[in-house]
């Protein structure tokens, strides 16, 4: 937060550098079941972010001493592709990625019925293929859809959005310039059904009233995005039914047995 610059991030009409209104989201597109090997998967485009999420499990936790006899452990691994950012990122997790993986794991676990799967791990892989700002929330939002695609029982699909402060104003869903030169960023994730907060971080500088405004704004947007998640799952199952039928009819033809 808060690198100095002379860039004006909000213009005289109250519009942001990319033309959005303060409470306007960037375009979001979610696809379900985009990978073959994973037990569940999802792809999200959110502004300039392109992120894949995949789920394996519940499967026996390995090595054995990591097993919890009373519940599943949830391991999310957030990773950026070397070419996803302007300056090449060395492969492997840096400290930022380790922290993000931790808060995402905790947020997802909040919604999963982990008691149903003792001694197992539920492994969630989030790959940032192209990064704009807000990758952790976009990744978490996709991961949650991938968990549903994998059939993991959950209270609800965790979903998130960030809000922050830019040129003295509270705005929704910061883009890269706003993230670099703005005054505060507050990523938030909730369980929509109960509106409980399962992920929240903040850095920058806001009054308590501004924090409340940002939380409200992010929560409202998260509820909207929650619908996009569910629509994407619905679309998959409708398409899935059709495809399955087609595949079955193809099988006889192609396999040439």
């Amino acid at each position, binding site marked *: *937060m*808060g*690198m100095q610059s002379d860039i004006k991030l909000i213009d005289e009409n109250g519009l942001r550098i990319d033309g959005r209104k303060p409470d306007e989201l960037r375009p979001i597109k979610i696809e379900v079941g985009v990978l073959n090997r994973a037990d569940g998967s999802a792809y999200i485009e959110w502004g300039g972010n392109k992120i894949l999420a995949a789920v394996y499990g519940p499967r026996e936790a390995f090595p054995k001493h990591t097993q*919890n*006899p*009373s519940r599943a452990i*949830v391991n999310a691994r957030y990773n950026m592709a070397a070419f996803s950012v302007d300056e090449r990122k060395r492969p492997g997790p840096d*400290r*930022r990625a*380790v*922290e993000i*993986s*931790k*808060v995402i*794991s*905790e*947020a997802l*676990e*909040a919604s999963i019925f982990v008691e149903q799967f003792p001694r197992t791990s539920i492994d969630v892989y989030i790959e940032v293929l192209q990064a704009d700002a807000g990758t952790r929330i976009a990744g978490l939002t996709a991961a949650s859809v991938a968990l549903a695609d994998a059939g993991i029982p959950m209270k609800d699909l965790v979903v998130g959005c960030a809000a922050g402060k830019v040129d003295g104003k509270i705005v929704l869903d910061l883009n890269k310039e706003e993230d670099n030169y703005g005054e505060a960023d*507050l990523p938030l994730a909730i*369980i929509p059904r*109960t*509106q*409980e*907060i*399962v*992920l*929240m*971080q*903040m*850095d*920058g*500088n*806001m*009054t*308590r009233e501004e*924090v*409340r405004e940002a*939380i409200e704004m992010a*929560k409202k947007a998260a509820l909207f995005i929650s619908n996009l998640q569910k629509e994407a799952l619905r679309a998959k199952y409708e398409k899935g039914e059709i495809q399955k039928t087609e595949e079955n009819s193809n099988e006889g033809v192609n396999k040439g047995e």
Partner: protein
Amino acid sequence: MSKGSDEIVYGLKRDYLEKISSKGTRIDGRSAIEYRPIVITPNYVIRAEGSADVKLGKTRVLVGVKMEPGEPFPDTPNQGVLTTNAELIPMASPTFEAGPPNEDSIELARVVDRSIRESKMIDLEKLVITPGEKVWIVYVDIHVLDYDGNLIDASQFGAVAALLNTTVPGSRYGMEDFPLPINHVPVITTFAKIGKQLFVDPSLEEEEVSSARLSIATDENGNIVAMQKGLSGSFTQEEVYSAIDKSIEIGKDIRKRLFGR
């Protein structure tokens, strides 16, 4: 980390703590917003440029600051560099293991770091030696010695106390010594959620049964400069708002009491 402990004992303990906490009572008799005794010994390590030994109840953390000339980051050529590291050494707890930083020590270091960085506590622009080429690197090293809960606050208090007592060792490099330039004094307050209640400064046995954690860093203007929610539980919006309000009050008190600001 209940995994290693006896599940039944753990269950009983949790039931007991949840029961008493529903009445706002804590096992050690503190009020919900009461810290354990805090004893800070600044300049504990004279070889360091600044240091502080922090006892927060039975938790003990030693923070040292070292300063060395080095290169600035390319995108901030006219600023010193702040780097914060935490070591959860196996001396401090049977559950800590030797080895490179893990997700717990990394989160600890990064949350403390953000409170310092985002509050603009240090005037990094005064730490330039040769613009674009050579600046002071501020190393804040958090060494956890005894773990009885609430490492975030103990470490943050230690980092602040150590930085407030830091002298930039210019004379070692042919320049002049000067006190580390300080602009602000951030304070973190951490809450643990047990059952439906929030308690500040959780002890280890409270942490073990808590479902969620919320750390809030405030500055002397009562502004929020960093937050971090932890653990796999959740908070309602009202709980968050209430915690924020309390953190501002508690922060003021701690800032005055510990740092005289």
